[in-house]
């Protein structure tokens, strides 16, 4: 929905007044409401004014309705611009309001939109012959027969581009058309015919409720596989997009580290360079735990990470590399930790812990 404005002055009629019979009808509408609540009749009156003016609301009609109901002009304009059912600019002889909300969209409204765009051009413009104009609107409440369109006062349902094209041709030529479903079903009964009471599969659990069993089977079958695939994908995401929750738009760009062990691991390189390991192995260089004799660094990192990953925790031992990104839950030890470069002995791990 785009900004809704009144039609340009060149298209506005110089005046508007209800015809005698419409004025009488309007009086009846106003009388429905108690004294002091006449403004409640604004929608019926606008509707009638639109009908009288060939399907769209000119400025003078809005002012006439405001005067009739004793409302400020802006209050009537608010109502008229709120609803797409009120056309503020001239419409064609047949005004097509195409539903573009989700159910219609998933049943093919997009093709219809493309068709109308191709045949009539941009929405909101009257075709050269004056027959058609169209607009995409929100749900018109006929979702069971999606996709659908409202043309003037009537609904036309179960449309395809071909059916819509034929419908428009018929309307333009003045041939009779069928209101409602265009594929032959009555109102919104099932597509395959009226079998709700006669179809046994609807009641024996083979159709209704079958979805649950399907989900249960699927869940049981894929528990391991899903866990693994999630872990893999989160590992890859962590490597390529290290800060997913904190985008950097709007501030100084901070380059993500390119040599984090997780990234190196993902790109198939050795996570920790042998040179670094050698440096870290030097007890004089180590800043952590100065009182204790530092164990050999490479072993510590590799083994502690493996152990930490098994225990579901991150290693808190000193390291000379930036830490790997936090890994999403569900990752198992195999995928989440960098491959140790040296063979490890599980028993030695256990002892250290």
């Amino acid at each position, binding site marked *: *929905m785009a*900004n*809704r404005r009144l039609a340009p002055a060149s298209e506005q009629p110089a005046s508007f007044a209800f015809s005698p019979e419409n004025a009488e009808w309007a009086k009846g509408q106003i009388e429905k409401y108690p004294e002091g609540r006449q403004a409640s009749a604004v929608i019926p009156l606008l509707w009638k004014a639109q009908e009288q003016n060939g399907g769209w609301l000119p400025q003078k009609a809005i002012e006439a309705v405001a005067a009739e109901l004793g409302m400020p002009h*802006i209050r009537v304009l608010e109502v008229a*611009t709120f609803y797409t059912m009120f056309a503020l600019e001239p419409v064609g002889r047949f005004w097509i309001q195409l539903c573009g909300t989700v159910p219609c969209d998933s049943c093919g409204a997009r093709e219809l939109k493309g068709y109308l765009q191709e045949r009539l051009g941009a929405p909101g413009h009257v075709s050269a012959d004056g027959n058609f104009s169209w607009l995409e609107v929100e749900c018109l409440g006929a979702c069971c027969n999606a996709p659908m369109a409202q043309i003037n006062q009537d609904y036309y349902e179960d449309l395809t581009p071909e059916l819509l094209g034929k419908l428009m041709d018929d309307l333009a030529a003045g041939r009779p058309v069928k209101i409602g479903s265009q594929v032959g079903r009555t109102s919104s009964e099932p597509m395959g015919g009226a079998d709700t009471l006669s179809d046994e599969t609807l009641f024996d659990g083979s159709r209704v409720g079958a979805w649950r069993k399907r989900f249960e089977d699927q869940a049981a079958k894929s528990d391991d596989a899903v866990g693994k695939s999630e872990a893999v994908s989160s590992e890859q995401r962590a490597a390529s997009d290290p800060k997913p929750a904190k*985008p950097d*738009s709007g501030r100084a760009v901070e380059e993500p580290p390119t040599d984090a062990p997780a990234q190196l691991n993902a790109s198939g390189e050795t996570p920790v360079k042998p040179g670094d390991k050698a440096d870290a192995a030097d007890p004089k260089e180590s800043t952590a735990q100065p009182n204790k004799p530092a164990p050999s660094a490479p072993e510590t990192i590799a083994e502690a990470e493996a152990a930490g990953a098994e225990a579901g925790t991150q290693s808190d031992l000193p390291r000379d590399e930036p830490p790997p990104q936090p890994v999403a839950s569900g990752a198992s030890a195999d995928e989440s930790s960098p491959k140790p470069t040296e063979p490890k002995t599980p028993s030695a791990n256990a002892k250290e812990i």
Partner: protein
Amino acid sequence: MTKLIVDGTEVDVPAEYTLLQACEVAGAEIPRFCFHERLSIAGNCRMCLVELKGAPKPVASCAYAVKDCRPGPNGEPPEILTRSGTTKKAREGVMEFLLINHPLDCPICDQGGHCDLQDQAMAYGVDSTRYGENKRAVEEKYIGPLVRTAMNRCIHCTRCVRFLAEVAGVPDLGAIGRGEDMEITSYLESAMGSELQGNVADLCPVGALVHKPQSYEVRPWELSKTESIDVMDAVGCAIRVDARGREVMQIEPRVNEDINEEWISDKTRHAVDGLRAQRLDRPYLRENGRLRPASWGEAFAAIAARMKSADPKRVGAIVGDLTAVEEIYALKTLMGSLGVTNLDCRQAGEAIDPAWGRAAYTFNPTIPGIEEADAILLVGTNPRLEASLLNVRIRKRWRMAPLAVGLIGEAADLTYPHTYLGAGPETLADIAAGKHSFAEVLKSASRPLVIVGTGALTRPDGAAILSSAAALAKDIGAVTAEWNGFAVLQTAAARVGALDLGFVPGEGSLGFGRMGEPGALDVLFNLGADEVEIGAGAFVIYQGTHGDRGATRADVILPGAAYTEKNATFVNLEGRVQTTNRAGFPPGDAREDWAILRALSDVLGKRLPFDSLGALRRDLYAAYPHLAALDAITTSDVAATVDTLAGLGGEPGRPAFVSAVPDFYLTNAIARASRVLAECSSLAQTRGLEAAE
């Protein structure tokens, strides 16, 4: 009273309170945009979400009543959490949505520095955006000469729409379209028709509506702020004068529940540029028919030369509409010592005599008292133009409960429904005689209120009209022991103060009308009276601030200080004594008015007995003790005064009443010097012509 637990503290609040009010009672701060305590509740910004225990989702505390909360399973009081994780997350989420389409304009936005969105984004927002799409762009709208729009910044709180519809009573703004495409606009971008439209920019929590005249001129942190009082009408609204250096940049409202709540009229707000233009910044002396700049010494010498030879009976003194009590007192003392009794302050020629009692010229029920009235008769007044904020109070009263308002005088749109009774004194006589149906309404009311405008008094039969209005008030029981239902609506800020000082002609002396006649006087001292014709013959000394009508007719001009440039006392239409505070110094050689009179008295050989404002006020308070009670109204015997007035008698004439304020925007010299108000005035006149067609 209902018990509630807010963040662990138990509070006891009335059941009709909203959760937001209850939280404030408990001392918890709730952020908000759309909620405003003087407007209806909209509940559309969602910033005030809090966690209510037991509710499935956070609730909008501004729109949720305490009485709608359910107790806990064992009857515990309902519990509200304003600092919980859920509340914090809700606020962050709402703020993120609000900022999605809000431009990053802050460095060039006039609202920067006093912006609710800015402050609350700092306090409750998150530091980064996750929104990668294009922001919404909205066309700018023209909604009048006083409010500039930057509609991209609008967060759709609808405070402006609600203010105009509810408080101002001129529903000119609305929200067209819906959802993301909602836009605030006036009907086809016409100018707003309210005399209070500047307030919508104050109400705007973001920079979408800002004051057009001050666009790109001021930043809030570079202004020195002085609390003061407005003098554009007699209501005496509480204002804050914001000055940069010695230049007044803007005037903003201050809260005073007894007078203006928190609104001010456009005239009050935008007379600011009138304080800079057309100022008298040095003395002038007329020589050979032309005014030439002079020194103070020359000016005083010229006055002394004329005064020496003048007979006190041929000397007069008049004061205008913006004159403070201090200088009126100084002038009165000086004239008294010279033996001059031709004094008058009733510039418009009102038939009011202070001898009748103070209640004969004040608004006796007081402005908050309007809320207790249940029927109002307006005689010869259009309060919307003569006292806008008083009219707001009448409208507020009408919104509280049904109110019968009758109007005798010029037909006008008062912003609330009223019965138009007639145009002139004969309608008043009809009502008094009980011939009119409205007489029944007044009689059956328990607290009827008769408001007489100055328009009904500034005519030869003014006293007779005042008398018949007082008789009517007495007749309908408007003045009782607990209700003062007789009111005179003054239009000039100086008038009540001057009448309190008794600045009226003594026995057998000349009044305003007679003093203005050609040849009536030899010397006339004009203290700021600009709306008066002074005939040929008199030597006119004009002391004032602007090169307006008074200065044009002057032979000597003494430049004085405007209301933002002096500490001065004004008595408002209720009789409430208030003081202005100096926000800056007068331009050039101009001086505070009492000091000019003190210096002049020395030259005239009648030195006034005070050398400082403090000493002047000591004398003043000794002579008029009620002026010492600041911000208070000294009660007077209304019943006795009404009896006196009713006893005056007299035969009212035939002509219809005319309003005392023909042009709302141009009522005094400061307003007439303002370019902004001139534009408003011409716009209002065009609108008036269109409406007449």
